[in-house]
């Protein structure tokens, strides 16, 4: 408990200090609970998520960093490794490949990398996984772009 608090506090300070270091990620800690975080990440360029801003919710366990944080998308996203309804993410480093050297910041980076490089073989979103696996890249991209426009971009007007 003490260790996780201390570590999260360090991460918090680090985030404050390097606010401008990574313009694609904006990590915010809940005012009253250091175990709850949210992040805004920019969709990587040259992907159907380009131009979108996606919100992530972090729930950090007491055994952190020995145990990984739970992360899910709050913003709807059409991606083979993200559950379309719950926003759950299938990413190895959040499960068996977790190591305490990951931070909330670097997890965000890993999620951005996943957005750019989907793994259609372990899909949480079967529709989008199937589109990709069947080689229908255009179909996948147009769906993903549509949802990015619908859910991840500021409404015009």
């Amino acid at each position, binding site marked *: 408990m003490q*260790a996780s608090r*201390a*570590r999260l506090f*360090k*991460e918090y300070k*680090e985030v404050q200090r390097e606010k401008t270091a990574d313009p694609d990620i904006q990590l915010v800690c809940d005012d009253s609970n250091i175990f709850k975080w949210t992040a805004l990440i920019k969709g990587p360029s040259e992907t159907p998520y380009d131009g979108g801003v996606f919100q992530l919710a972090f729930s950090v366990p007491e*055994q952190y*960093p*020995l145990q990984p944080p739970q992360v899910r998308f709050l913003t709807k996203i059409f991606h083979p490794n993200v559950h379309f309804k719950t926003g759950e993410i299938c990413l190895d*480093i959040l499960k068996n*490949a977790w*190591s*305490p*050297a*990951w931070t909330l910041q*670097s997890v965000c980076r890993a999620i951005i990398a996943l957005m750019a490089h989907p793994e259609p073989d372990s899909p949480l979103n079967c529709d989008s996984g199937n589109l990709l696996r069947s080689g229908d890249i255009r179909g996948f991209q147009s769906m993903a772009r549509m949802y990015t426009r619908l859910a991840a971009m500021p409404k015009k007007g």
Partner: protein
Amino acid sequence: MAIEDMYGRSDEEYYNGGYDDEYEDDYDHDPEPESDDDLSCGKAPSCRVIRKESLLAAQKEDLQRVVDLLSLKVHHARTLLIHYQWDVDKVFAIFVERGKEKLYAEAGVTLEEKAEKPASDPSIEVTCEICFEDFPAEQTTLMECDHRFCNDCWTEYFIVKINDGKSRRITCMAQKCKTICDEGKIRDLVTAKDPNLAEKFNRFILESYIEDNKRVKWCPSVPHCGNAIRVEDDEYCEVECACGKQFCFNCLCELHAPCSCVMWDLWLKKCDDEAPTVTWLSEKTKHCPKCHKIVEKDGGCNLVQCICGQPFCWLCGEATGLEHTWNSISGHTCGRYKESHLKSEDSVEDYWRLTHYYRRYKAHIDSLKIEASESKPKILDKVCSLEAKEFLQLKDFSWAMSGFYRLALSRRVVANSYPFAYHYFGDLFANEITKEERGIKQNLFEDQQQQLETNIERLSMFLEEPFANYPEDKLMETRMKIITLSTVTDDLCKKLYECIDSDLLVPLQQTTHTIARYRSKGVEKASEL
């Protein structure tokens, strides 16, 4: 007298001519050593028992071979062997075919290329990337992959991993680093914090030799004897642990050859101890909807009639009229009757088959138990009283106990041949063999099985005789019968195995059903390391 007569006459029938003379000859001289392969496995034991005390010694040889070939440190050799499941040949093969780099990388072995860096000033502060605190270098630990973290973070991490049962493969904490941590460093750090856990860690590491090794398995005895068994070549074999437990090495079940492991598993599921009665009750009886008496169903038709006269539909239990065809009961429409009429015919058929085979199997297993608990002590008594007597020629009475052991061994063989037959001549290979072929094979098999069965019963009969009170000439006769029958039974067991293997299984060209080979001497006792 009557019994002797009966068995005397059937001699020719079951000795298959020729046998008589041959075997009497053999046994009049000193008993000859058994077949060649029995001799060879007497020389080099094919299974060993590994005790808590010999666990380290058991893996030393494998470790040493890897250390020698690749000039590695022992802990690296262990990491390799754990990853490659203690298959030394595989390690060598990958080394030759794909090179050192690949071999090491896949297993998570990282060798320090540079000799341990000149110990940087131990007072210099370094930042631990886990807790973000600064520490003097001496309070941090560097792994071979060149990743350094503070001792506290390492220790906490190791404790979690050990408690998670991951002792055998603890990777470095750095992101995406696949290096397996040096067991020595783990041990030192954990010992400082929790000596008991470090002790556990040591044991887990040593036990990888059993847990991750195809050739080694824990003895399945309950309560556990603490031993493991290592087989040298064939996993399909039956072994006896030093604690006395006999088991199939491959599936860890009780002895079941000449039934394959897969068939045995299916058989156990089909009928554990009470299953036949349970099945009988659940499938064979239902309550009459009118008078609530138990009604037994004996036949395929699903319209049954209680002794009170009430007809009812077997499938839904509802009272009906008597008018019916195969497909329907007039005026009754539960919808299940038609659909399951055929299905239930099948299940009744299968039920009778199972009962047939199960009864015979069970009869032999029961005899086996009775013979062990009742006949064995009696035979020992008889031998004792014979040894106390003075005979002209007979001095040695070991044939009586040899006969008993032969009886027990072949009982098990014939018992287990029933579950085999249940599956082989049932649905298991329905797609592989035609009905006609199956019929021919079944005749062949059952002929062998019957010969064996008859001779087993005769052997049993002679062993039961009160031969301790016989005059010498009659005793000589009984002795000869027992010796001959023992040999014949042994031979028939061998033949039944051969029949199962070459006539029944080999033609199917499958690998699922491998049968532990027949050993005249019985289950091999695992020898000490």
